[in-house]
């Protein structure tokens, strides 16, 4: 039986190794500095890059972070510091259910709510969709981080005559920031890699993000680029898909390693 279990273990790791290897081989050969600064090429034209997609991902993930972190942290503060009882349980339940909503559903939702209302695809719609993806992760990891802070620290603050908001903002939260940042990093990695939620919200474009139009235009992203270029029969574009996938997985690897290291060095 142990042999079977061991075989299963190996079978589980094989796909991971195969994928990472293939990515490494294909990706490294396709990466060059031009990839970061040039625009996507038309079919069968060599060269080019996806600088616009990188920038687009950065912009939309930033928008998503700006929306989801304040809401997520405050919600976690509610769950950990303010409440007890049934309401907290319902909110936790809702958070977990929200994290299970397929990202394509989120994309379709944002399409109806934002894209149709403003009659345009935009980086804002894409960022908003990503923020819904990030929100449950941030709420969950922040609540865990806050729960790690011992009650005695709060008692000390209350004992000294601090208001609740002072205890939370100036004593508890600062102590939890390393763990919260780890959660935010993980959420960012998740958002950066998601395609389905961006497909009908930010769509895609061959051009750089348009600041003059206040980003209210279709915006390129790494995740959508991988999809678009993976399904076409043109080798030059497929190469770029590998390069973009390589960058995405590098980001994922980095954030996973960082979060592991940060967790092992916790103060509490």
């Amino acid at each position: 039986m142990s042999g079977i279990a061991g075989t299963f273990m190996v079978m589980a790791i094989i796909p991971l190794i195969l994928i990472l290897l293939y990515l490494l081989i294909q990706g490294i050969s396709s990466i060059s500095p031009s990839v970061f600064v040039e625009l996507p090429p038309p079919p069968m034209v060599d060269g080019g890059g996806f600088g616009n997609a990188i920038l687009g991902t950065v912009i939309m993930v930033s928008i998503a972070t700006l929306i989801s972190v304040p809401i997520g942290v405050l919600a976690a503060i509610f769950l950990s510091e303010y409440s007890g009882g049934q309401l907290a349980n319902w909110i936790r339940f809702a958070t977990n259910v929200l994290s299970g909503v397929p990202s394509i559903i989120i994309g379709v939702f944002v399409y109806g709510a934002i894209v149709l209302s403003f009659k345009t695809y935009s980086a804002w719609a894409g960022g908003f969709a990503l923020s819904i993806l990030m929100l449950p992760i941030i709420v969950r990891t922040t609540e865990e981080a806050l729960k790690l802070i011992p009650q005695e620290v709060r008692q000390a603050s209350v004992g000294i005559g601090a208001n609740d908001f002072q205890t939370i903002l100036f004593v508890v939260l600062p102590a939890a920031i390393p763990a919260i940042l780890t959660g935010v990093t993980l959420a960012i990695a998740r958002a950066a890699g998601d395609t389905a939620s961006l497909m009908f919200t930010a769509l895609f474009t061959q051009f750089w993000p348009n600041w003059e139009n206040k980003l209210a235009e279709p915006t390129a992203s790494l995740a959508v680029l991988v999809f678009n270029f993976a399904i076409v029969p043109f080798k030059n574009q497929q190469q770029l898909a590998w390069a973009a996938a390589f960058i995405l997985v590098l980001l994922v690897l980095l954030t996973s390693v960082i979060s592991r290291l940060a967790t092992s060095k916790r103060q509490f």
Partner: protein
Amino acid sequence: MTSISEQTRIGSRPPVEKTADTVFRWAAIISALAIAGFLIWIVLQIFIQALPAITQFGLGFLFKSTWNPVRNEYGILTPIYGTIVSSIIALLISVPIGLGVAIVLSEDYLPTKIQTILVFLVELLAAIPSVVYGLWGIFVLIPFLRGITPLRGPGMLPAALILSVMILPTISAIARDALINVDVGLRQAGVGLGATRWETILWIVLPTASSGIIGGIMLALGRALGETMAVTMLIGNSNQLNLSIFQPSNTISSLLANQFAEASGLQVSALMYAAFVLAVITLAVNMLAQVVVTQLQKI
């Protein structure tokens, strides 16, 4: 009785502080409610946009397999079939393997350092973006399968296989947690009774951890049902109802992914109807999974 001197009298907080305290508390409450609000908004929004199609096609939508934008005839039988079948095949593969992995990583077979690395690697599997799985599937998995099976191109088989890889981490992580949380005393009781390691695992530890494991399997099912990109890139996107796993098929999520961008008019509403069906199915599975998992935590 001494009178209260003005010097020692305890007064009220400065109003600024009281206001800040109240405002902050309300900000936290509203943010927490916003989460539930988003959930409700999502379901409502999709439902409202699906209404035209719902009123026009009714429940028959779920049982017809024609998808014809030209004649505005829509039915999602094939996508429903594909969604369910691909998820079940994926579960059939990943549950045994995931359990095996969980057992290996929760027993004391391996030194801690190696265990940590392996746990990390399985976590990594979960973090790889769906679209990257799809990319790999197109250029590596499908050609490989073409060499050894009747598969000719995209189809149910590669989609189900890649799905099983993607949901494996969910099963193994939750199962591992459930196994680790089984009281040490129980294992020792098994050994004390003369049971072998595997007898202890199969007849004592696994049953005790079963509610957690089942919860994990349900969460994995939820994930499989909603998985989009990798499946879209590998399943072939055919609305013909083929029973062979070597033939192309469709899932609700890939239907949406493929058709949404160019859809207009009633087609959009039909797609919204399909999205609503998917949303309801995944919500139901996820909510049930939550209930099962929290039952575990109550033990």
